[in-house]
Structures are given as structure tokens and as C-alpha cells.
């Protein structure tokens, strides 16, 4: 194809620096992240939703009773991310997993920081690893790492 016939094309970049106001419940969860704590919220049947929503994910009724949950839990399912998306908080390959924290009745989506998919298995126990610099953002949680024996005992 000659230069003349080559179609004209251009890169179109759509870029916005969104600032989202959180409201009380999401704001409290983010505040917790900044303080290296994880919070959930109680549903009407007493079960705990992590991360917390202002409303029940089925009945839509307002939820107001926030509770702290463990920083460790169980991998319910996982996949392997390689390479990570350019805008994701991670530079290295990692697992993406649904993790059910002890004290929670639902699971949260986050990374499990291991070197290869062979180190991953459903049901493995993991514990939170925090960033040094925390601002109140879901990525303050660097991810989860395999729980050590000492932590188990």
C-alpha cells in the first residue's frame, strides 16, 4: 500500500481525572484503608458485607451498622493477570481473586501477590498487605499475600 493510499488515522485519547465523593459508608471504608483496617456493614439478617455498601445488595434497604473484619481470609476463586492493564495499580503479574475475609459473608475483589499461578489454589488463606503511603483508596491495599504458618496458629 502506498503512502497515499494508507488510511489517515489518529489516536483519540479520552482522559478524565475523576474525583468521586464517597458518602458516609464508602468514605468510612476508605478511611479504614488509610488506617490499615477493613470494615464491613451488617445486613438485616446479621450477615456482613465487605466491602460495605450503603444499601443491601438484594433488598436495597439502607444499611448503617459498620463492623470491623479480619485482615485475613480465604480465596474463593482466582485468575492470573499477565500482563496487568496499564492503569491498574499493579506492575507485575499477579492473581486476581475473590477473597472472603474472616468475619465477612461476602467476598471482595483484589489481588493476591504471588509469583506464579502455580502458587495459587482455591481455598488458600491470605492476609492483607498494605502500602506505605495510604490516602484512602481501594489500592491502599497493595493486595493479599499467602498467610504464614505463624499467622495461622
Amino acid at each position, binding site marked *: 500500500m502506498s503512502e*497515499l493510499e494508507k*488510511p*489517515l*488515522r*489518529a*489516536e*483519540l*485519547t*479520552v*482522559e*478524565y*481525572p*475523576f*474525583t*468521586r*465523593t*464517597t458518602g*458516609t*459508608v464508602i*468514605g*468510612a471504608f*476508605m*478511611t*479504614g484503608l*488509610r*488506617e490499615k*483496617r477493613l*470494615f464491613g456493614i451488617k445486613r438485616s439478617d446479621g450477615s456482613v458485607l465487605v466491602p460495605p455498601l*450503603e444499601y443491601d445488595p438484594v433488598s436495597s434497604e*439502607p444499611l*448503617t*451498622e*459498620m*463492623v*470491623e473484619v479480619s485482615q485475613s481470609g480465604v480465596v474463593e476463586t482466582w485468575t492470573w493477570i499477565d500482563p496487568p492493564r496499564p*492503569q491498574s495499580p499493579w506492575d507485575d503479574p499477579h492473581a486476581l481473586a475473590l477473597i472472603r475475609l474472616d468475619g465477612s459473608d461476602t467476598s471482595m475483589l483484589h489481588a493476591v501477590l504471588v509469583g506464579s499461578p502455580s502458587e495459587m489454589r482455591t481455598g488458600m488463606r491470605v492476609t492483607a498487605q498494605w502500602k506505605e503511603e495510604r*490516602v*484512602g*483508596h*481501594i489500592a491502599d491495599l497493595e493486595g493479599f499475600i499467602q498467610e504464614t504458618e505463624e499467622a495461622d496458629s
Partner: protein
Amino acid sequence: MTDPNSPPASLSQEVEIPESISGLEPVRSVRSPIRLVYDFVPSPPVQEYLRSYSTKKILGHRSPIDGAVFVPPRGVDPRHGVLIEESVELSDKGHVGNFCVTHLPIPGRDDLDTPYVSAWIHLDGASVGFLGLVAGCENDEVHIGMRVQAVWKEDEELGNTAENILYWKPTGEPAVPIEKAGNRAWGQTNE
């Protein structure tokens, strides 16, 4: 009447913030930038239209239904939804169908001094207007129906872009009567 500043009854129960963080400055907002990149490829008729600018030609698209000429080419006649394949070369002269004197700077155009005049330019031979900058006269001299002609970049600066036309300048010819100016003129001459 409802008080807009207090929550509806169903949302009036306060959220219990756990003690461990209740005394702290709460997070009120999060930043989540988004960047999406698209590969923008103009349709073939627009490709042809852009290329023709490099030889100082302006192409329009003639409708097979009634010969109406659209510029820039849209590939279809928007009144009938039929495909258009016939290109026609248009004059670089026309009239101001309508205009706006803008006093605000616009993103990405630091080169434009405000206030500036953007206008719907109705080329001779075209049935609709397209946007262009009017200069070469005082802003308050611009009027509906004013005859204008393209001012092109120097030949060596020409590219495959409508930006080859720097602006539209008055020709000094007698103005088009207001009732014959702009998109409305079509209906009058054809009814």
C-alpha cells in the same frame, strides 16, 4: 413541603462509624482517573475529503435523491438514510449563514485570541453550512449573508486537513439576503 436539606425519612438513620476511626478526619472523596485510547479512522469519504485539502480542494457529497450537496461528506443523506457515493468539488467562496462571537477560550486552541468569530460557512454549490473561523475584518462587521472566501496556508504547509484553511475573509461582494442565507434557503428555492 419536603425539606431538601434533610434526608428522606427512609435514609434518616445515621450510619454507625466504628469507634476506631470515628474521631479521625474521614475520607470524603477518591480520585479515579480514566484514560481510554481509541484508534480514530475517518470513513472513506471523509478520507477523500481530508486528502483533497492538500490540493486546496473542498469536496462535498451529492445526494442521489435530489442533488443536495453535503459538506463535509457524511456518507449518507441524513434526510433519507440513503448512501451517497458521488463527490463534487466545491468553490472556496461562500457566505456566512450564521455566526457566533465567542468570548471564551476553548480547550486545545490557545492560538485563538478571544473574542473570535466562528461561523457556519455556506459554500457556493453546497446545500448545508460547515464551521469556519471568520477574520480579516472587525468582529462587529460580520453579519448573516456576508460573502467570504477561504484564506489558505502557504502551499508548502498544506496537509491532509481542513486546518489548511486558516480562516474565511470577507470578499466585499454584495451580501446574500438574510432570507436566502443558511440552511433555510434550500426549502425556499425548492418549494
